[in-house]
């Protein structure tokens, strides 16, 4: 049985969404985003560093400038990384996605996250993310 995904776990409830660094632990990206917006932190997850975190979906990450992935496990994709990539038909608004700018993800594991962004980003992920 797969490990259940939980939103608003006790640990997640204790997170400070305004923290600049998140080290270890497991949380849902939509939880963090919602907590951040409710705390008045704006509509973009910006300038954060995530190390050794397990980050759950469901969520579509809008990858903006300055965001990097180092040693990240993007999660199972049945041998085709394109399964986690989506192209916005408009390319500018990307409603429903979670914008992430100038963030660093290091040695994190993603579970059920999709990704969107500009053409360069989509091609980079398609080329560089290793399928399972």
């Amino acid at each position: 049985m797969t490990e259940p995904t939980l939103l608003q776990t006790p640990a997640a409830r204790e997170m400070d969404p305004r923290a600049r660094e998140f080290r270890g632990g497991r949380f849902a990206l939509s939880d963090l985003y919602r907590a951040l917006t409710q705390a008045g932190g704006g509509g973009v997850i910006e300038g954060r560093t995530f190390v050794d975190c397990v980050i759950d979906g469901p969520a579509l990450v809008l990858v903006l400038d300055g965001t990097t992935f180092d040693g990240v496990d993007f999660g199972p994709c049945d041998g085709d990384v394109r399964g986690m990539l989506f192209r916005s038909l408009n390319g500018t608004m990307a409603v429903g996605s979670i914008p992430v700018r100038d963030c660093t993800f290091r040695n994190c594991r993603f579970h059920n996250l999709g990704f969107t962004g500009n053409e360069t980003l989509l091609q980079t992920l398609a080329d560089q993310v290793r399928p399972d």
Partner: protein
Amino acid sequence: MTDKTQAAFSPDEAYGRELVARTAFEKEAVWLPLLAVHHWNAGEMAIRGKTFTDCVIEGPAVMAVMTGTTFDGCAMGTTSDMNNLLYKPQGQKLAGVVGVADCKFVRCRFVQVGFTGSDELLEDLRGVQSLSQTEPQA
């Protein structure tokens, strides 16, 4: 005879199971990521067979619109251009999105929700009026 397994559920788990079992939602705010997670934890990989009437459906989330799902008199988003809400998948297996099949959305308002699906579905949704003419009920 009491259901001994019920006693083992945490309040969160019991709430989640109750949500999964429901087939109708009316005049409620529904947080789509949470609804999806409760379904996955119950072993159901898509939200299926439910009717949402006069609800606010909240993201952030992208809905994979699957067979049988319909939208009737809904406000799909605060934009006049449906393209702002739509995503074309680049592969076959869709990660990160919320699958919704055989569901009906009636006079619902979608907030921070995008949509994806087949090329045919995207073409159909492009022609939908994104802003409802009626005031939201929820």
